[in-house]
């Protein structure tokens, strides 16, 4: 029988492309024989805009990169600037930064895992992680006045000290969160359908992952123990005791497992930081007009989605000459075209969901 392939345009308006990713699939029945990923539907030209902003004005723009973990994006930029200007920041600010960054890592992974399971068809499974995320977002809203675009960090410290409401809310979260983890493992881990849908689907070898520049949980799921917090600690991350979970074969199931374990490790870091939280100021002495010396600095941090790098070139004026972000989601999705081949449509959805990318970061 003579058959022919056909083209299916998955996105930019499709519920499972997490925004406006567009994948043009060449299909033979249900099986993918070719794919081309298109990006750029959410491009706002952030890097170009930043060339016309002063250094402190850059911070709110970073919130809009990976909008599910705004604090972590704040962090990479302010740390780059501190590196450039050799600013020592107060201990208390360092601890609060770590706590918030790890809280947002949990919040981001809650979205990643929840949406992942939802895209596999279990709609209820998105609600339980979102409840936990909502607690974190409420905490952050009371702290910074905003649920997702915080603009809370400053070059040299933080905008202000933590609010009096923050501690009771964090206490409550620390008590309630382990129970959620336990329940969710019971709900998902051994589910036959979940295993059938994710085991050996979208398998990536360690070599291939490295060659495509994968980072974050997607790289660690392939068995590569790479975490900037361990290999090249920034801030005060060398003071905390935590593990770097890795997967075995880099399939969709491993990506779920690694994220779940990472959430637990982040929870451990939060508890340690919270226990050791020192008193003192949260802002270092920073000149009113920030005018870094001529030169360039690259700095990278471990974001929920992977390694977020920030490259700033200064020409000695109050405005940066060039700001560039190495956005992990952008590099992560570059592997899609290769691993989609040979999978069914349902698998492609599973792979898309398991990568947990954010289009705000892909397109910048």
């Amino acid at each position: 029988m003579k058959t022919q392939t056909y083209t299916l345009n998955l996105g930019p308006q499709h519920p499972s492309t997490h925004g406006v990713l567009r994948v043009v699939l060449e299909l033979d029945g249900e099986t993918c024989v070719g794919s081309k990923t298109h990006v750029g539907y959410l491009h706002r030209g952030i890097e170009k805009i930043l060339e016309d902003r002063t250094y402190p004005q850059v911070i709110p723009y970073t919130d809009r990169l990976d909008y599910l973990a705004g604090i972590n994006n704040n962090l990479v930029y302010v740390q780059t600037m501190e590196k450039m200007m050799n600013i020592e920041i107060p201990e208390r600010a360092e601890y609060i930064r770590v706590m918030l960054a790890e809280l947002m890592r949990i919040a981001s992974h809650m979205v990643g895992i929840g949406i992942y399971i939802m895209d596999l068809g279990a709609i209820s499974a998105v609600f339980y992680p979102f409840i936990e995320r909502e607690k974190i977002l409420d905490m952050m809203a009371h702290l910074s006045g905003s649920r997702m675009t915080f603009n809370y960090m400053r070059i040299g410290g933080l905008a202000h000290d933590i609010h009096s409401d923050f501690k009771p809310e964090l206490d409550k979260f620390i008590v309630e969160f382990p129970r959620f983890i336990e329940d969710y493992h019971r709900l998902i881990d051994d589910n036959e359908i979940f295993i059938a849908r994710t085991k050996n689907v979208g398998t990536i070898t360690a070599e291939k992952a490295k060659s495509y520049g994968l980072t974050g949980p997607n790289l660690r799921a392939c068995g590569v123990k790479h975490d900037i917090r361990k290999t090249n600690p920034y801030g005060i991350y060398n003071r905390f005791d935590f593990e770097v979970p890795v997967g075995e074969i880099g399939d969709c199931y491993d990506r779920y497992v690694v994220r779940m374990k990472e959430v637990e490790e982040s929870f451990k870091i939060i508890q340690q930081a919270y226990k050791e939280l020192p008193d003192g100021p949260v802002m270092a002495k920073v000149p009113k007009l920030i005018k870094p010396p001529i030169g360039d600095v690259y700095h990278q941090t471990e974001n929920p989605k992977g390694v977020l790098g920030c490259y700033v070139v200064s020409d000695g004026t109050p405005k940066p000459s060039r700001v560039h972000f190495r956005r992990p989601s952008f590099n992560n999705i570059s592997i899609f075209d290769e691993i989609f081949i040979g999978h069914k449509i349902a698998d492609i959805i599973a792979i898309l969901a398991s990568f947990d990318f954010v289009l705000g970061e892909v397109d910048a």
Partner: protein
Amino acid sequence: MEFFNKIFVYIAQFIRETLAALGFTPVWVEMGMGTVYLVAILGVCTLAALFYVLWERKLAGYIQYRPGPNRLGPNGWFQTVADAIKLLTKEDIVPCGADKAVHLLAPVFIFVPTVLALAVVPFGEGMAAIDLDLGIFYLIAVTSLSTIPIFMGGWGSNNKYSLLGAMRAVAQMVSYEIPLVFSLLGVVLITGTLQLQGIVEAQSKVWFVFLQPIAFLIFIIAATAETNRAPFDLPEGESELTAGIYTEYSGMKWALFFLAEYCNLFIVSAIGVTVFLGGWQGPFLPSWVWFFIKTHLLFSFFIWIRWTFPRIRVDQLMNFGWKFLVPLSLANVFITGIGVYIYYNGLGW
């Protein structure tokens, strides 16, 4: 008690006698009764759909730690009515390039097998519109017709997602028809009748769910697949095919598909209750009350499944159907046959 048990039977009798007393010939009396039955069935069908649309949303809400619809009317119970009005007043969109006639007829045809199937369901003692001798056979025959309108909808929409959904629907419904039939066949072997009232009466001592537990499980799985509900909602596949066969449907045409889905689920719940859970039999309460209680519980069970499990993949669906359910149901029929033979004839030595 006896009066309430047979209240609907008495009403039907009263109408029949009135028609006869008015001087109609027997043929016209039968025609009149047919209309009455049809109206009653459509009433049950619509009410059930209206109720269960809301009930599913409520139950899903409870599962997901949220209240569900709770604004309109007492505790949100008028929500479906408001939704229906909204859908009725929406613009009717036919995509360009669609096969207009097929696209339009699909949501109408989807109701035909539904109404046909309800004609033989015994809602209570003596409360079946038509008590066919071939009840089960008829049910299976008419419910399998629902594949055709779904395929019409998917084909007529001129959309690749819809076409994919239609292909999945046909493959799935044809594959799962077989284990469904075999699961019911075990019960038929035991009772020796295809008549639904007879099957219900045979369960006066013990429900068939205890004699045929494997068949009941196969029935639940195959029925979920037949009605295209999660984890077998591949034709719809919200996160994969956007809405599959329903992608290009909006307004009242979509609502008809939606209502038919709930009616069909009501029917499979009713069949499950009739064949495996003792039908309308039960103590104290009138028989039709028992029937609706049991159907409601089985329906809620289907809702619970839907809101808990992820969706399975199309090749896994086929493997599961052909390599597991079909052999298992065949084995079940075989063992039941041996059991029945030994029960009636002894071991013969």
